[in-house]
């Protein structure tokens, strides 16, 4: 049985990476479904059929967003970069370049691999 979501032998991947791979595959499938519905809706003349497909596409929007948020939560650098691009008015490319500058280094060196952040984040609930 073939599992297309894996690029490397699955047995060599950690359980966490296999979970991520499933969600990446789901994300791509949801994006593909949104695209398909978008095309079908543009050519379907029957209003009732269009309403059903629009409803289905709406579901795919939700699924895509949930898959994406799951992956963001497990990939903080991606999340941080996306926060610089998503839901912002203005020039998308400029936002992308600015977000990249804030999360990555462009000289090939990892300089500690963190872009400078110590990655401490929330400590809520940790005690003595």
């Amino acid at each position: 049985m073939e599992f297309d979501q894996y690029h490397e032998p699955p047995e060599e991947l950690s359980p966490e990476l296999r979970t991520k791979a499933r969600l990446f595959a789901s994300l791509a499938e949801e994006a593909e479904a949104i695209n398909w519905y978008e095309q079908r809706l543009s050519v379907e003349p029957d209003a009732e059929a269009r309403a059903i497909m629009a409803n289905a596409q709406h579901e795919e929007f939700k699924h895509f967003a949930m898959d994406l948020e799951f992956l963001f939560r497990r990939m903080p650098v991606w999340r941080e970069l996306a926060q610089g691009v998503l839901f912002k008015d203005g020039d998308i490319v400029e936002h992308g370049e600015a977000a990249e500058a804030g999360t990555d280094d462009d000289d090939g060196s990892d300089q500690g691999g963190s872009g400078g952040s110590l990655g401490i984040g929330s400590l809520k609930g940790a005690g003595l």
Partner: protein
Amino acid sequence: MNHLLRGHAPITDEAWKQIDEEASDSLVPRLGGRKLVDFDGPYGWGHSATDLGRVSETTEGPADGVKMRARRVLPVIELRSPFTVSRSELEALDRGAVDTDFDSLNDAARRMAVAENAAIFHGLADAGIEGIAGASSHDPIPLGDNGFQDYPEHIAKAIEVILSSGVEGPYGVALSPECYTGVVESAEKGGYPLLSHIRKILQESGNGPMVWAPGLDGVVVASMRGGDFLFESGQDLSIGYDSHDAELVNLYIEESFTFRVATPEAAVALPK
């Protein structure tokens, strides 16, 4: 390369890794405020203000029949704590030395943690930040001069005050270094350790944490239910490069954030 300019520092990847680890190890135990409040973000260095959802009073606008009001925001503050690392120590580190002198880094981490905790608990008036202790709508419960023996009673009273105002637990307790040391070293009549008594009170009110918070004056008891104390991070604690010469590399710890108290009823201050 981002604004921290780490790529310009004469520091190898391995040395950066060691510096970052040392800074984290030095900061995390001291960040007592962060252990009690909600953390949101980080939203990046470009994040400049937190929306408050409030507006100024309505005034006449620039044209007849047009009213005007301005949105109110809380500006992000930037904290920076400089330190140095000797270039000869960095060279030793790259040769495999395990006893690198990071005293200056540890001191900078201590100062940064004190500053962050002070902002969370006591506020920064110039930056419009009101801390948990000052924002509390409850009368403070003075710790008094009767040694540390009364601390469990005071903390239990503070929890009861918060609960009586309708704010559920779990409840956390932050202690200044002086108060923490006093509690650790003291026992009640009969020999029962004060620390164990306070832990028992917290366990029975929802199992909240006890935290050590340099920068705090006295003790603070606060609800941990969420949504009451909001730390919004722009750039989370990071290390950047400033300059270097033949002997030293000048670096700094930096962060940007705002802090708000949404529910003044959710905490009680217990000043010394």
